[in-house]
């Protein structure tokens, strides 16, 4: 599958123009060669692990999952971009400050034990709200291995859905970035279309969607050429 846009190539071009060519010519050539091969399968399999943006983009993590084969290696673990989690974080912070004015308003009507009870209940429920959202963030993952792609979805806390697509069935990988915030912080959707009746997979609000698409393309290439 063709790679439509290579952000690293443009970075390299900027570097070449900005730096003194006479002093760094040899270094630049080496860097260009290494980044051109960054998403080659051989380079991918032997490069060190990386964790970025609160573990939302984990490259070659030491993660295991249910049903993993012995020779199957996890290449990517993807979560929502931290920026997309801001609404519930802000809501939690606002709700944490809410009981104080309420207590001041109702202090005439309620006694001390009742006020203490209300505060206890309020913060207990808020704690649970934050904890559920943290669990949602941690376990709503997309996993790319050397054999397949998995999409683990927690619709609510007690509903779990796992979609699996084999890499040799991948037909097309599409990335979508919509809006100013998504463009600025570089996150978006990756839609993976599979052949036949296999289920299509979509990773939502994941960081660096173009890089993810490139990696999936490189991995699926191996199966299409084999």
């Amino acid at each position, binding site marked *: 599958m063709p790679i439509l846009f290579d952000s690293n190539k443009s970075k390299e071009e900027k570097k070449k123009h900005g730096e003194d060519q006479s002093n760094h010519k040899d270094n630049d050539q080496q860097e260009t060669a290494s980044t051109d091969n960054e998403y080659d399968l051989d380079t991918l399999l032997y490069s060190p692990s990386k964790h970025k943006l609160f573990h939302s983009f984990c490259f070659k993590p030491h*993660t295991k999952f249910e049903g993993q084969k012995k020779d199957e290696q996890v290449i990517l673990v993807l979560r929502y971009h931290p920026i997309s989690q801001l609404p519930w974080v802000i809501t939690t912070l606002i709700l944490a400050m809410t009981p104080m004015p309420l207590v001041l308003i109702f202090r005439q009507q309620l006694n001390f034990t009742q006020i203490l*009870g209300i505060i206890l209940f309020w913060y207990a429920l808020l*704690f649970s709200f934050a904890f559920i959202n943290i669990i949602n963030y941690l376990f709503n993952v997309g996993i790319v291995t050397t054999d397949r792609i998995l999409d683990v979805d927690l619709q609510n806390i007690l509903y779990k859905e796992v979609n699996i697509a084999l890499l040799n069935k991948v037909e097309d990988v599409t990335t979508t970035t919509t809006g100013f915030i998504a463009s600025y912080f570089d996150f978006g959707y990756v839609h993976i279309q599979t052949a036949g009746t296999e289920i299509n997979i979509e990773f939502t609000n994941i960081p660096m969607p173009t890089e993810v698409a490139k990696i999936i393309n490189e991995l699926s290439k191996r199966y299409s050429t084999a």
Partner: protein
Amino acid sequence: MTDIINIHGVAEIIIKISAILISLFYLIFAFVISKHLKSLKKTIDINDKGWLYLVSYIQLMIGIILVTYSLFVL
């Protein structure tokens, strides 16, 4: 009429009953979450060094405190 039905007393009973019910639901929910976390960790094993289990047990403790408070203090 107000002498027969103490409005303040009725309000206190309503608050106590609702507090007991909410705290019981909270305790059940905390228990379910702590059990469900184990199945989630089986699906994908993340290296959190036991922090999630710790937080789920804290939630369970909070649930017990709430039930005790609403039963014996409120």
